[in-house]
């Protein structure tokens, strides 16, 4: 059996509301402003497809997966694989976004699990998530994302 034991948990506190944070993940026109990518799904309902699309002329699809759970504005769970590896079930990992109001802050926990130890995806996301979450925080708090 494929070893998919690796996981990461990322936490950030953002001065915003759970609704705005949920929209920042699921609405392409907001997402593109701090992520450089859009998360696109027809309806974000369990079983629906989602895609991670690079902003730009070619609009290349970089990641694909299915929506596993969606409970706005508290929780979103999706499967996650490179577009080029979409036909191999072993290459799918899982991302959970948990959103929790804490006073005037919102705690966002991103759990990325079912990753293969030593895989390219593990390496990519280890470098990627801190940058994306810092940029998201900056965007939601100041209107300006980081240059990523």
């Amino acid at each position, binding site marked *: 059996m494929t070893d998919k034991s690796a996981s*990461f948990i990322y936490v950030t506190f953002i001065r915003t509301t759970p609704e705005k944070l949920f929209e920042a993940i699921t609405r392409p026109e907001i997402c593109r402003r701090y992520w450089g990518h859009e998360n696109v799904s027809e309806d974000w309902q369990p079983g629906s497809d989602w895609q991670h699309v690079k902003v730009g002329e070619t609009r290349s699809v970089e990641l694909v997966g299915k929506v596993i759970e969606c409970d706005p504005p508290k929780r979103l769970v999706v499967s996650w694989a490179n577009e080029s590896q979409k036909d191999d079930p072993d290459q799918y990992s899982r991302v959970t976004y948990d959103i929790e109001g804490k006073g005037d802050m919102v705690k966002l926990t991103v759990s990325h699990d079912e990753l293969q130890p030593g895989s390219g995806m593990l390496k990519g996301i280890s470098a990627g998530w801190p940058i994306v979450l810092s940029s998201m925080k900056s965007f939601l708090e100041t209107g300006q994302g980081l240059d990523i």
Partner: protein
Amino acid sequence: MDDDKVFKALADPNRRQLLDRLCDQNGQTLGQLCTSMDMKRQSVTQHLGLLEQANLISTARRGREKLHFINPVPLYEVYARWIRKFEEGRLGLLHDLKQELERNGK
């Protein structure tokens, strides 16, 4: 506000060592972390508490176990604010130096 907690948490060599241990292997239990640290269990617990307050680690329950994960998001924010902008300045200086030397060489 949060920066203070991050820098204070990082100001202790034992806490930095705990982060290194989690960097080597993410998602460890308290027991696992204790075996690689030359410290009492109680001290390790205290250090982990301070790291968690600074949001440098997060914890998750998996069955009966509580696992500790390194959370590099605040470190990236420190990098973006305190390192990246200085690095850009230095790269600018190097660029100017190159321009100057090449101009003189002609």
